[in-house]
């Protein structure tokens, strides 16, 4: 018995589904190569730079603005019972006016209370902000928005520094064979002169450590840093790895 003959529709549906699935698979595999074309030029993307030396500051949202509310809309008060005005209309009007005045007064008081509450909240919020400002460090800096070219120039400066210091880095053969490592923390002025240097991580060998510090002394002044780095390199410094 030919099952296909019995179910021609389902076979057709199956074929159709298979074709669609295959086309979908091809598109799925091909699409990335179409979008991410190899061999593109280097695209300098915008980079967000977070200040890595200064203590981070919490980015705080400004406190909510407390605005005075607009005057209440006019209220059309309709008496509950609609009675035909009696001949004493004036009295009724006066009563209605009185009611209006009372309601207005209530509204005013309400508004006043709300205002006071909002002010109180704002003050408390201000107080909280002031307190939190003392505890910088557990926050993220707002950072500086650098584009790729600035990032490249920063890297270029680091490479200059490395080359400059390397020219003064000499070791006697016997000390080199010991395969020692040390780190030194250095702070420099905007003109490149060393203002402070200290061992950040000792090698364990006093002669090696002394050689490291003497190298930094001899290498001063360093190449002047770019404007963006002047403050950071003066106040927080940078760490030199001897040899790496």
């Amino acid at each position, binding site marked *: 018995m030919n099952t296909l003959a019995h179910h021609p529709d389902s076979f057709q549906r199956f074929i159709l589904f298979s074709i669609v699935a295959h086309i979908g698979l091809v598109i799925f595999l091909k699409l990335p190569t179409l979008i991410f074309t190899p061999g593109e030029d280097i695209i300098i993307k915008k980079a967000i730079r977070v200040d890595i030396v200064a203590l981070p500051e919490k980015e705080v949202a400004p406190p909510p603005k407390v605005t005075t509310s607009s005057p209440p809309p006019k209220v059309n008060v309709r008496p509950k019972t609609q009675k035909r005005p009696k001949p004493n209309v004036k009295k009724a009007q006066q009563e209605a006016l009185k009611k209006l005045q009372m309601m207005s007064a209530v509204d005013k008081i309400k508004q006043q209370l709300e205002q006071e509450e909002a002010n109180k909240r704002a003050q408390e919020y201000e107080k909280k902000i002031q307190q939190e400002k003392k505890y910088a460090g557990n926050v993220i800096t707002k950072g500086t928005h650098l584009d790729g070219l600035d990032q490249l120039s920063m890297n270029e400066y*680091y490479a200059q520094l*490395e080359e400059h210091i390397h020219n003064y880095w000499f070791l006697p053969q016997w000390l080199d064979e010991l395969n020692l490592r040390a780190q030194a923390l250095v702070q420099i002025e905007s003109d490149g002169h060393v203002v402070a240097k200290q061992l950040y991580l000792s090698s364990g060998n006093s002669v090696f450590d002394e050689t490291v510090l003497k190298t930094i002394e001899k290498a001063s002044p360093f190449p002047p840093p770019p404007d963006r780095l002047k403050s950071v390199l003066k106040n927080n410094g940078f760490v030199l790895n001897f*040899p*790496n």
Partner: protein
Amino acid sequence: MKKQLILNMSLYLFTLLMTPMAFSQGKIYIDVGQAKIKKSLLALPPLQAYTSGTESLKLGQTLFSTLNNDMVVSNFFTLIKPDAFLEDTRKVGLRPAPGTPGGFNFSNWSSIGTEFLIRAGYRIINNNIELETYLYYVPQSKLVFGKSYKADKASVRKLAHKFADDVLEALTGKKGMFTSKIVVAVKKPGSKIKEIYIMDWDGENSNQVTNFKGITITPSWNNDGTKVAFTNFAYHKKTKKRNADLFLYELKTAKTWLLSHRQGVNSGASFHPKLNQMLFTVSNSHSSDIFRMDLKTERAKALIRGRRNTINVEPAYSPDGSKIAFSSTRSGQPMIYTANANGTNIKRVTFAGRYNSTPSWSPDGKKIAFAGHIKSHFDIYTIDIASNKITPLTAAYKKNGKRANNESPSYSPDGRFILFTSDRTGKTQLYIISPDGTNERQITNDNNHYSEARWSPFLD
């Protein structure tokens, strides 16, 4: 509900991943890189003689000149000229003042820029020489080490070499090669005979080991330096023919063993650093294969074989015994290969040049020195196993303006030098060079023809 749950989980995971990045802080780190090397200034005043006489003077001079040469060759030091000394060391003691009455003054040495100061004195007692030594680091007015040595008068050079080894060990943690030796095949001028000689690293104390009055070649050391193996074209009474047989010679007892007499050339022994086994080559008209021999049973079997007419020669165990380096023509031209010690995993190491041979491992197992044929001559190269980087070490000219042949490299046991032969003077002499291609020195300077030199392991 389900969708909300999935969304919440995704947000939670995202936050978890982002949090460390959000709160990470760090300093700017800059690598200064490898330092350039400079030499230290060493003051080596004349040795203090505590005994008088011609013999004492002569021994003192030998001690001093040997030590002086070792310190210069080490490449660690630049020796300060004696006329720059501010102190007459004959008038002061070996120890510093004020701790020692009449001692020397550190300031007299620091003011001339001295970094290291050696003070030593010797005396002859009966048939022995006693040497008292001190090494000081002058910038810190510190004693690095002080030691006394004693040996018979005939070993006066060895005494100086021992102190030189100790100086390097005190400074670097790794001792020097100054007490090591060289084994080499030597052909005297006008002779066709080649015999095996052993000498100090500096070419002194040369002693003939074999006396076959024939051709003796491819010497090598066993793993502890107590024996040497070599090949001699020995005459077989039974077959009435000569065959290149492999022998083992014990230095202390002068006892000789026949290790292998397979038909063909049995040569190029390489001893396992730890196990009692050895590699060697058997070459005949068909091919050359590498064999491994159990030295206890003296049974050997082929380890590395090639197709017919393929050459597999010059095996060398790596310092840890896990690998073998050898030269092979399996890809057409002789190239350097490595394999596991059991002969598996054969890998080609050199792809440059037309003829690469005589591999020698560095003691740390990271490099192989070899002789490479370039244009019309051989030069010495090293190849880094990890990076495959090849570094040329030698380049020299003969008197006729043609390029010299530099061959048969062999690393010193401390890895600081490579020994090789060179025909640049017209006679093949021995030279040493630092692994970076600097500090090249001629060791022998005579009319002998030296070939296939091998540096010993540490002998102490």
